[in-house]
């Protein structure tokens, strides 16, 4: 079936096609999920944590409905992931529903994801009913209200994003106050659904720009988004952290997530650590890519993550085909083997790194959490640079932070910009980078050309590890 889809009553750009009236009530959707005969995403995550294994989830999304259904079924039949994904196309992410519709009717293959709002909630339910695993919506929308409404009506129990993490890396000119307000509405609906008995998992996108994000920035932004979500009524929060590539740093960052939750979130909110397999420049060679995938899955296990989002050996070439996606899931799942209990990490080094991560996150978030109006404090802090991310796509972050890998490959602050890090933390970052200056010759002020070259090297870290260094260019 690839019948034409017609937008009903969408004469204004940016308006959800079917209008909210056409959607079922929240009560009806909650009843639908209860009768669906599958666990919610929150239940799957809880069970994974209790059983000590890492739940596995792919990214996947194509434009056509039947094609999307076939993709989900193929992934489930061949790799049985714990959760499945609908990755949403770029038009829908930006509320360009008319363009999504036109492209869908012209050639669904031109869409880089599934346009759920355009297909509508009945088709969303059709996808949901065609697989046993719960679904999550992954996208990148600064304002996801229309998409979320259709997601809930589709009986989808996990929804990624946040007012900071789905704005700064994706949009150039959306004020943070606007995206925070839009996401607060999403989170309030989650609160109402929780009162009706349905816990929606809200995953925060700590990966941000995926380019050398210092762990304390990723985690600080997730803490802020998590506090806002919990205040709006969200009861299950997944904090996603992207693999830096440095074992001790990554394990410490993952293990800090339950501690941060205890410190900053009210009891009764379920919090899960989610690990993103490396999100930066991936090696091209299949064996190299698969080494990195398996390594990432082992790190997720060591860090105690509830869930792992997988990559494929085709990552360096673009969106993977179904076969590669299946292979990536199967490979990642191998790291859950009971035979691998002997794999361990230096506990003292992890404990030390973890203390520093907690201290840096505290430096960044505590001045904000003291403010009466947290959303206003966040927008203001981003404007002043006291909350910041490196290499922001948005003008609404200062992006004064310059990250840098140390000699071991851990991500440090070459410049912390205006982040309110303590003198101790700044001195440690300096020392870790300067101690390693023997190769670069004066990392303190390396000059623009060598700074660009150094950072390009840091971005292409795994190409160097695997000897694929003919690659050139920055991101």
């Amino acid at each position, binding site marked *: 079936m690839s019948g034409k889809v017609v937008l009903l009553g969408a004469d204004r750009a940016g308006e959800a096609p079917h209008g909210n009236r056409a959607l079922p009530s929240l009560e009806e959707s909650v009843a639908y999920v209860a009768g669906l005969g599958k666990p919610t995403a929150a239940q799957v995550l809880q069970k994974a944590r209790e059983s000590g294994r890492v739940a596995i989830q792919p990214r996947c999304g194509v434009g056509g409905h039947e094609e999307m259904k076939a993709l989900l079924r193929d992934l489930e039949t061949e790799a049985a992931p714990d959760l499945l994904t609908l990755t949403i196309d770029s038009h829908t992410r930006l509320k360009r529903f008319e363009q999504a519709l036109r492209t869908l009717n012209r050639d669904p293959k031109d869409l880089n994801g599934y346009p759920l709002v355009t297909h509508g909630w009945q088709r969303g339910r059709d996808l949901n009913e065609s697989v046993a695993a719960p679904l999550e919506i992954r996208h990148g929308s600064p304002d996801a209200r229309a998409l979320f409404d259709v997601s809930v009506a589709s009986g989808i129990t996990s929804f990624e994003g946040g007012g900071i993490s789905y704005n700064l890396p994706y949009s150039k000119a959306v004020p943070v106050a606007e995206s925070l307000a839009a996401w607060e509405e999403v989170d309030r609906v989650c609160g109402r659904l929780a009162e009706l008995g349905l816990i929606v998992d809200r995953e925060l996108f700590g990966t941000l720009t995926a380019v050398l994000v210092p762990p304390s920035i990723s985690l600080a932004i997730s803490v802020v988004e998590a506090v806002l979500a919990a205040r709006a009524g969200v009861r299950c929060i997944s904090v996603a952290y992207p693999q830096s590539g440095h074992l001790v740093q990554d394990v410490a960052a993952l293990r800090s997530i339950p501690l941060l939750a205890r410190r900053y979130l009210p009891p009764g909110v379920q919090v899960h650590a989610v690990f993103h397999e490396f999100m930066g420049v991936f090696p091209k060679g299949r064996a190299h890519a698969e080494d990195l995938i398996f390594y990432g899955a082992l790190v997720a296990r060591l860090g105690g993550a509830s869930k792992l989002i997988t990559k494929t050996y085709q990552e360096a070439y673009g969106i993977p085909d179904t076969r590669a996606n299946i292979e990536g899931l199967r490979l990642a799942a191998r790291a859950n083997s009971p035979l691998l209990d002997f794999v361990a990490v230096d506990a003292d080094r992890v404990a030390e790194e973890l203390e520093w991560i907690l201290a840096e996150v505290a430096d960044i978030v505590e001045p904000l959490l003291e403010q009466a109006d947290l959303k206003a404090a966040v927008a203001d802090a981003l404007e002043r640079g006291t909350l910041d991310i490196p*290499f922001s796509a948005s*003008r609404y972050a200062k*992006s*004064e932070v*310059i990250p840098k890998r140390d000699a071991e490959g851990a991500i440090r602050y070459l*410049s912390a910009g205006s982040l309110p890090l303590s003198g101790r933390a700044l001195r440690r970052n300096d020392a870790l980078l300067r101690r390693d200056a023997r190769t670069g010759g004066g990392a303190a002020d390396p000059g623009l050309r060598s700074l*660009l070259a150094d*950072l390009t090297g840091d*971005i292409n870290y795994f190409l160097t590890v695997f000897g694929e260094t003919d690659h050139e260019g*920055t991101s």
Partner: protein
Amino acid sequence: MQQRKIILGVAASDAHAVANHLIAHALRGIGYTVVNLGTCTPVEEFAEACREHPDAEAVVIGSLNGHAHEDLRDLAAAKAEGAIRCPVVVGGNLSVGSRKDPSALERLRRLGVDRIVSDPAALPAVLDELRAARSAAEPLLAVS
């Protein structure tokens, strides 16, 4: 003494943020006020920024995806209309393909690009030269 100011951005079809932020960081470090328009900036937005910041001494445009000429197509008109009056500096990876063709640079110059910079470290010196040339040509507009 008035701070020196430049307008910085990446060409319209280009989302490469890293070099853009590093150049902003380096120029701020040597005292410039940098109005950074960021990635995916069409010529029209550069012109708008020029109207808002008439004291900017140059527009610096990065392009890494090889589409510089297409992205800067409107530059000739913007300069002719006087919407962009200050010198325009372009740098990065300016045409598709690994072997560079000098005619690609000539085509950019014909659009109104004043200087093409292959090494970002050369930017401060290029900005100094452009300012010196401009104060010599237009003493009344010189920053005092």
